[in-house]
């Protein structure tokens, strides 16, 4: 192969990759630009650089579109509480169940593992309709706590599988030794096994946190009054305001909402890539 041919054939994959990735780049670049300029012409900033679009952070009362909406700081706190609480429940319940499935040979173990996998692929709309009724019956409808429990429950089947995989890699002998020395099962689990599966907890925790932070459908359906609304509901409300959309404000709020996730992604990229690939093993 000649020099020119080689040059073209090694540059080709790059060119195709860039071409295909362009739409994603354009979308995210626009999100950033649009929030810092007074006017945009497509992708090109046409106005002056400004922080005006971000004034919802320091003088929210001057932003007309936010007049009849919950203030941004409580919304942020709600979102944070929602995702942290979901993560805590998912981690605790999945690691207990995962440990039991990995170590104890109780009747119905196989059936439980199989059904957990089946449940994970269940259409969420099927669950939503009935969960609506369940929440009403137990009095958690329209409350953040109810949405936290539902969200955690939806994440737990995958969590159990992930954690079981990690527990399977921890050698028996360690626990055996501690059990022989007279430690209780719970102590062994908490003191000896849990520290060894820290990478698994980290991976699952990241997954649950990101998924909780981003959640839109559950609060949308189960908290209609919006008294404990999250950021996703605010963005949705601004987006749904029809034809006179103020893209400057909208992108600033959107960027504010997505920024923690982007920063997290920057630092925990390798972990997240693994989790989303579905192949989380020790």
């Amino acid at each position, binding site marked *: 192969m000649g020099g020119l041919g080689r040059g073209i054939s090694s540059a080709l*994959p*790059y060119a*195709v*990759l860039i071409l*295909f*990735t362009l*739409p*994603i*780049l354009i*979308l*995210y670049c626009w*999100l950033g630009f649009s929030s810092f300029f007074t006017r945009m*012409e*497509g992708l090109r900033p046409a106005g002056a650089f400004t922080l005006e679009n971000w004034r919802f952070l320091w003088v929210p009362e001057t932003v007309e579109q936010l007049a009849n909406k919950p203030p941004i700081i409580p919304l942020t706190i709600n979102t944070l509480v929602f995702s942290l609480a979901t993560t805590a429940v998912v981690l605790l*319940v999945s690691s*207990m*169940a995962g440990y039991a499935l990995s170590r104890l040979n*109780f009747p119905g173990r196989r059936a439980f593992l199989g059904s957990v996998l089946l*449940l994970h*692929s*269940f259409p*969420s*709309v*099927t*669950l*939503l*309709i*009935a969960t*609506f*009724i*369940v929440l*009403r019956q137990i009095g958690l409808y329209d409350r953040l706590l109810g949405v936290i429990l*539902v969200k*955690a*429950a939806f994440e*737990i089947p995958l969590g159990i599988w992930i954690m079981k995989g990690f527990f399977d890699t921890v050698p028996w002998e360690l626990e055996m030794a501690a059990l022989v020395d007279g430690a209780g099962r719970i102590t062994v689990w908490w003191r000896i096994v849990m520290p060894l599966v820290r990478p698994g907890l980290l991976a699952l925790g990241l997954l649950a946190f*990101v998924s909780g*932070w*981003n959640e*839109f*459908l559950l609060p949308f*359906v189960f908290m209609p009054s919006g008294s404990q609304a999250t950021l*996703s509901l605010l*963005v*949705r409300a601004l*987006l749904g305001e029809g034809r006179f959309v103020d*893209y400057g404000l909208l*992108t600033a709020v*959107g960027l504010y*909402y*997505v920024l923690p*996730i*982007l920063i997290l*992604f920057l630092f925990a990229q390798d972990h997240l*890539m693994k989790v*989303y*690939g*579905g*192949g989380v*093993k020790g």
Partner: protein
Amino acid sequence: MGPALVMVAAFFVAPVIITLGMSLTDMATTTGLANWQWVGLDNYERMARGSFTLLILGNTVFYVVVTLAFNVLTGLGIALLSANVDQRVGGVFRALWLLPRISPSVVYALMWTWAAAAPPYGVINQLVAPFGIEGRYWINSDPWLIVFLINGFVGASFGMLIFTSAIKSIPEELFRAARVDGANAWQIAQRITLPLLRWPILFVLTYQTMSLFASYEYILLTTNGGPGLYMTEVWSLWAFHTALSSYFGNLEFGYGAALAAVLVVMGLLVSFILLRVFRFNDLVSDPRIEIT
């Protein structure tokens, strides 16, 4: 173990049973949670006779097939290409493709709403202008295109990650041997990589078919089934609209539950057929590539 059982029972097992039960009732906002009645298979009969049932079924198949093709082919393409370039650059591209998946759905939908916006906004209008295509409001004029794009650019990353790890687990000697024999990149992909990716491809196809049948969030956030009556309405969105967010104010839980139950059957049926077509049993007996 206990808490897991309780949560799985309360939010999975109970809902499934309740859904099946509800689909046999006339429960709705008008009847309240107290005054409903058993109506047998009336909901299913209504579905079979409904004038929009066929349209929505057609929409669903169209949506699943096109998005699936886009997802799997793009995912495969990105995985193959990014494995063939410098490893660090490849990683950057994969990270970029993962962005839509980790971003909140409302923010991602916001970006596409802008991209597809009517002139003078909208980057799609600007991009196609040099080709002599007049500016328009794409969500209204070509709703399906936007539905495919918004779902495709999220969905492709799943296949990309699975295929990438599968490619990485192929022994390096195979590639080296092929190169020594004078094979070029295309021949290597065609003769070595793709045949060895048979199992991951089957897995991604089946998994994503199930996910697509169940998915409606991005459609809800962009076209919301419109424009016009049920133009881009898919089955899961129909169930959602009927039971949880009706245009007409009356939430029909019973009918919505029946629609959801049919959705489950559809998903199971299609994955069963897929596994049959790809002769799943032959595949598992092969020494397969572990997806790790």
